[in-house]
């Protein structure tokens, strides 16, 4: 017999198109505009068709659409494989599928693939907001599936459908959590494909140019968050080391190319004072940098240390990464390779005549090494230097112009000018970039370092002391900080002095948000093989490995499922009067002898019938049946009476 193809109601189509629109929407921002337009057009067409009716396209148009979609994606990405092109292809194809889908099967396939499209959304954004949004998408898609499976779907029942979908999802949460925690995690991907994470905004780069019309990054986006094992170090120690810039052409400063870095010897480091232990949760930034406090001691697993003490990851940080590390704030790099010394003394020939002249005066005065540093800093503090986030553009010789004309700049200007002055006096010097400071979050207890905390400072090599950090920006007196923005160094982490209640409230709100994000990073995004191992060890399963996990997963998930089943059947059984249950057992014994009570037959009538067949059994059963009738249809029986009945029912033998 053939069953006619199940009809899909209009309500189901509308939910389906709506669900797909919710899922595709965040992808539209990433897709090339014409692809996005194609998706929107396809969905709009379907929506109109479902509302107004009309014919679906024939096979010719279908083929054209499919080939066209493939072609457009290929032209946009140059490929059809890989995460970006793959996701674009899926989004476009699903949208185009709407134009021609007709039966229940088509609709179901579209919803299942839309679930997959939801998952791909997480490749590009794993924030809390994205999580919530895509959860809503899952609710809509699941509702669409429920509506689809109800042939008599009516719009007035929509609330019921949504509730059913929500029920399913809520009831699925316990099992999901178990799977999430206990499913064996691998460290390292299967075939090492990475996604080009969102335009990776950082306040740092591998180079800096002095004097271009530029603004300092004022983004309050968090670069990384740090939890200290025991107490936050003092502000003057909170220098997070990033790229070290050695080379300059007079305007642009750049790091050493990786090749030449490898040729340098690992420097000798004296570690004085106590070590500081901390854990960093680094937002993805698309570079290799792992930020650590000066100077790095214990590196994160798999990280590399360059000779200029920068910590690098083997692969670009494309995903949220958490690492534990420790540093010695008081440590010094004692050695200086001759090649390093040469690099650290090089100035572009013929540039910065005024700076050289100034340095010459200090040399003429026969100042010692430390005195030359002090002289340069005094020059910044005593002359009229200003700190500004929006300094004027500089001309041909930016360093000379900054030192003797504009005298307005931010950390990069000061660091670069200072290093030029030092090199001109014969002291090896280099620019170090990174982050400085951070904001202590009293709720999460962590330090949030933002892109606006990006900073540049200098290091000078003093004989007998090694590389010494000098931050020339700090010598600018506060009254000469023009933009009203804080000087990074002046701020004490954790100190909030905002006077107005509004400011305090805003700051509080920001801190709550930050703490929430940090918790999300720690417990949801940062959960992986390491944390899983830690959890197993805390449960006393040392070295159990993935076998242990699978065993534990089976046991826990099995227990939960059995519990649910038991609950279900217990609830159903309990709904039946115990008297009926006991009496049913007696009836079952009789049925085994071929004496079956009719559905509409009363207990007493049946007893009479049994007596006809078998006098002896019938008499005993009749007594039971009478008692049963009295208990069940009389006044509510006492517990003891029910118990006595149970005893008699159990003893009954046919």
């Amino acid at each position, binding site marked *: *017999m053939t*069953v006619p193809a199940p009809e899909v109601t209009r309500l189901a189509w509308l939910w389906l198109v709506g669900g797909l629109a919710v899922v595709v929407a965040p992808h539209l921002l990433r897709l090339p505009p014409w692809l996005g337009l194609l998706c929107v057009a396809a969905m709009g067409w379907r929506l109109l068709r479902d509302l107004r009716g009309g014919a679906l396209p024939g096979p010719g148009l279908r083929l054209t659409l499919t080939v066209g979609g493939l072609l457009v994606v290929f032209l946009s990405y140059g490929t059809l494989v890989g*995460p970006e092109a793959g996701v674009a292809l899926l989004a476009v194809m699903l949208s185009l599928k709407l134009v021609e889908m007709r039966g229940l*099967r088509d609709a*179901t*396939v579209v919803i*299942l693939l839309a*679930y*997959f499209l939801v*998952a*791909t959304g*997480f*490749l590009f954004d*794993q924030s809390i907001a*994205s*999580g919530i949004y*895509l959860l809503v998408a*899952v609710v809509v898609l*699941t509702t669409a*599936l*429920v509506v*689809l*499976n*109800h*042939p*008599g779907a009516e719009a007035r029942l929509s609330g019921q459908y949504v509730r059913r*979908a929500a*029920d*399913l999802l809520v*009831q*699925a*949460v316990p*099992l*999901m959590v178990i*799977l*999430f925690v206990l499913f064996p995690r*691998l*460290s*390292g*991907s*299967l*075939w090492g*494909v*990475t*996604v080009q994470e969102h335009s990776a905004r950082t306040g740092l780069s591998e180079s800096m140019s002095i004097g271009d019309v530029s603004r300092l990054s004022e983004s309050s986006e968090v670069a990384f968050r740090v939890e200290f094992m025991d107490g936050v170090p003092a502000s003057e120690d909170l220098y997070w080391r990033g790229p070290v810039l050695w080379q300059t052409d007079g305007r642009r400063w750049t790091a050493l190319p990786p090749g030449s870095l490898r040729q340098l010897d690992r420097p000798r480091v004296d570690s004085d004072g106590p070590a500081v232990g901390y854990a960093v949760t680094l937002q993805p930034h698309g570079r290799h940098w792992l930020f650590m406090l000066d100077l790095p001691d214990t590196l994160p697993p798999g990280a590399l240390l360059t000779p200029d003490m920068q910590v690098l990851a083997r692969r670009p940080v494309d*995903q949220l990464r958490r690492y534990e590390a420790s540093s010695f704030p008081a440590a010094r790099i004692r050695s200086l390779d001759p090649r390093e010394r040469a690099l650290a003394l090089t100035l572009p020939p013929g540039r910065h005549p005024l700076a050289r002249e100034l340095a010459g005066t200090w040399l003429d005065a026969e100042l010692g090494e430390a005195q030359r540093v002090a002289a340069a800093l005094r020059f910044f503090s005593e002359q009229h230097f200003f700190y500004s986030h929006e300094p004027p553009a500089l001309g041909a010789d930016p360093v000379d112009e900054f030192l003797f004309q504009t005298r307005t700049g931010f950390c990069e200007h000061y660091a670069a000018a200072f290093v030029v002055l030092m090199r001109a006096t014969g002291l090896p010097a280099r620019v170090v970039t990174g982050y400085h400071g951070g904001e202590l979050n009293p709720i999460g207890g962590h330090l949030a370092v933002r892109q606006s905390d990006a900073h540049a400072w200098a290091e000078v090599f003093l004989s007998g002391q090694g590389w010494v950090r000098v931050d020339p920006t700090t010598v600018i007196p506060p009254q000469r900080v023009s933009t009203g923005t804080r000087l990074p160094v002046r701020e004490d982490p954790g100190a909030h002095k905002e006077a107005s209640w509004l400011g305090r409230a805003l700051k509080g709100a920001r801190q709550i948000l930050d703490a929430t994000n940090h918790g999300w990073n720690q417990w*949801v*995004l*940062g*959960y*992986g093989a390491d944390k899983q191992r830690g959890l197993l060890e805390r449960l006393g399963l040392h070295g159990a490995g993935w076998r242990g996990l699978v065993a534990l997963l089976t046991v826990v998930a099995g227990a939960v499922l059995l519990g649910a089943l038991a609950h*279900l*059947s217990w609830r*159903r059984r309990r709904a039946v009067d115990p008297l009926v249950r006991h009496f049913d057992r007696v009836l*079952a014994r009789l049925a*085994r002898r071929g004496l*079956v009570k*009719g*559905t*509409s037959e009363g207990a007493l009538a049946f007893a009479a019938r049994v007596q006809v067949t078998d006098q002896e059994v019938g008499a005993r059963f009749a007594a039971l049946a009478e008692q049963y009738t009295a208990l069940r249809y009389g006044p509510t029986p006492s517990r003891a009476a029910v118990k006595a009945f149970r005893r008699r029912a159990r003893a009954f033998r046919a």
Partner: protein
Amino acid sequence: MPRALLRRWREAWARRRHPPPQTAQTLTRRRVYILPTRTGWLFAVVLIAMLIGAINYENNLAYALTFLLASVGVVSILHTYRNLGGLGVRAGRCRPVFAGDMAVFPIAVSNGDAQSRLALEFIPGDGEPRVVDLAPRSTTWIELHQPTLRRGRRPLGRLTICTRFPLGLLRAWSQVQLRQHCVVYPRPEAEAALPPPAGGRGVGSAGAQGADDFASLRGYQPGDSLRQVHWKALAREQGLLSKQYSGSGGGSELYFDYASLTAMDGEARLSRLCRWVLDAERAGLRYGLTLPGGTLPIGTGPAHQQQCLEALAFFGGVDDGAGT
């Protein structure tokens, strides 16, 4: 002893699984089966692809989504099962039909739960499936149609009740055999003149269904000849009406005898007799029926007609006694 015990268990199990047909049954847990549908397998494939993606990109939210959907799949087992488990079905009384017509089996479907049950599909052995929704704590009557080919008793046969609600990933089903049957009368012959009344001569071929004297219109009844149907009224969308003709045999007594129809084979004779019974009753005549093995005395009225038609239906021991 253990062997005897084992056998007893097995028999008890088989009886519970396939109990003898009853007029009312409840779909208990033991009788509800559940398996993934093709959509369910496809869902599993999509989840596996998502899991591979999550592992490859070490993406925790993709993991979370995969596990959430997998758990939804598991939870939907319970939902689908609960949509069917505990459902009560009770057989109603069937109206007799003529062979070749659709037998209509009314079935009361009851939901004792506080939750509604949606998209329950009732599939009879052959015939159109019915899809039903049930509100919480409610009973609904459905009618299942089954074609009839032969006269006699037409049981509903094995009835499959299944559901894919809510997600279509799983199909829960149960098979019940309700003690329910429809009495199928022989197909009345299209048109046949009534035999002469008792005593031999008289009305003759004019019969009760005098073709000339149009009397009135009344609602179509099963068994009415197609020639009687007032087609113009149907075309005017006034429904099926039958034209009534006044017979001229009022008051006379007719004897329909199986043995008198010598020129025809058995079933054709029964069709002829059926036609006569219907026509005589409609014309308000008094009539009796003689079949080999028994005679129904002269009488008239719906009860008499039913008696005659049932005698024709069960003639020759066809399906007689089944379920009585």
